[in-house]
């Protein structure tokens, strides 16, 4: 009896955990960009939006995500916005509002957004010279 109670409460906790909205992994080469419909191929510029219902929208370019937010008139605060770390695209995604964004024509992103994200200021500064970049942030993006 006690066991059953424990088990069911555990199940409830687990199920609640499953409902918690969060980042959903991108299946590269399979998933399509929610904005431009292109297949997402390049890990370095991938991004993802999770709305308040927990539904994930995936993008192949940071600028696609920005356009999508604007087009659908979504308010930023309700959303979780993730971007890939340019330096370590295989590691976990960054919160776009906390990430350090850089604009450079040398970033050949799929939709010509020319924007990449870094996890720390040092990382961004380290590459800035090489690619003739300019620092920017999420709100500044057009």
């Amino acid at each position, binding site marked *: 009896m006690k066991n059953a109670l424990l088990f069911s409460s555990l199940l409830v906790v687990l199920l609640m955990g499953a409902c918690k909205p969060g980042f959903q992994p991108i299946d590269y080469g*399979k*998933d*399509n960009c929610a904005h*431009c*419909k*292109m*297949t997402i*191929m390049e890990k370095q510029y991938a991004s993802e939006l999770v709305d308040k219902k927990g539904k994930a929208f995936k993008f192949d370019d940071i600028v696609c995500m920005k356009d999508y937010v604007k087009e659908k008139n979504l308010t930023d605060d309700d959303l979780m916005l993730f971007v890939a770390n340019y330096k370590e695209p295989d590691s976990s995604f960054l919160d776009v509002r906390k990430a350090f964004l850089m604009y450079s024509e040398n970033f050949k992103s799929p939709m*010509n957004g020319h924007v990449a994200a870094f996890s720390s200021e040092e990382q961004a500064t380290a590459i800035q010279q090489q*690619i003739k970049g300019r620092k920017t942030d999420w709100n500044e993006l057009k």
Partner: protein
Amino acid sequence: MTKRFVICGWCLLVLILGSLSPAISKTIRVQPGVGKLVEAVKAAAANDTLLLLPGVYKEQDVFIGKKLTILGQQFPVIDGGKKGHVIVIAADSVTVDGLQVEHSGRSSLEDYAGIRIQNARFATVRNNKLFYNTYGVYLQNASFCNVEGNEIKSDSKSELTSGNGIHAWKCHDLMVRSNSITGHRDGIYFEFVMKSHIIKNISKKNVRYGLHFMFSNNDSYSENHFENNGAGVAVMYSKQVIMINNVFRYNWGDAAYAILLKEISDSRIEHNLFQKNTVGLYMESTTNIAVMRNQFIDNGWAIKVMASCSGSDFMQNNFISNSFDVATNGTMMLNKFSRNYWDKYDGYDLDRNGIGDVPYYPVSLYAVLTEQIPTAMILYRSFLTNVMDQVEKVMPSITPDMLKDDEPRMKKWKL
């Protein structure tokens, strides 16, 4: 009489050319080895011809900055050793013919190519084999160039990091003809390319698109075969694109389209064959497209036209054994369907003029339902679904009644 003139003319031409050419250019035979091609290019004068003898040349960044013709005998191998570009053409009127160029470098910042043409005009890249390069032929700021008869392939192991087969960026007046491309990210990729033609290429089994247009106006592609590509062909953000006599086949997958059109205007899609694709033609935010005399056979959806499209004409096409003929996501329809042959049409033709007397509504009830609830597909072809479809035909309630063909043709068009 005229024949004699022609022969005389040719003799004269041969004489003139024969007497001039030794004076201004010479042919240099190049032996294989490490760095031999770079040396030979440096030593040669403009207008010379380099004849590469069979063998392996280990080279990197062979920079051609003068007008040269490079010919290969029995496909000499130019191996880039997975570092940098292999051949870079940076002068006008360079010809590269009959080489096997392989193993360019791979990097996330630099697009390394087998043959790169930069800031040059009148280049010809002909009859080469381009194997296992990140990018096969890469044209940047090039114009009046000819990329013809090349065999381009890459390995599928490194799918995500691989580049495009033929990649053109900021170019105009290109001719891409009779190439075969396989195993790259996009077979042919055009970005900011104007007044160019893509003819008779075969683009198969590329990871993403067989052909990809971005921001490229006044181009045409005709008589190409696109098969088994990850997501078909994408034509995006372009104007005045002409697509004629192409074959789109076997583009299967959750998000695969034979052609994906997004923000395209004033273009023509004619005489193409769409066979066995998940979606034949997907259109979003397009204006003024003529879709005429195409064949749509055995597709999941022949056409998906979003409510954001306007001013397009769908005329004289054949729709044969598609699961769904047309799907859309709204009730508005600003496009016109007319005189198509629909194999699902079961109307009558009492006056025997070859045109059905009652209109055909190509959007079935289930096409509307699955557009809103994709998972409803699991019940497709069930008994209830058939009943619902029949009822909807008699009393239309949720299918868009503006989307109809008023003059459905009774017999197939001979295309």
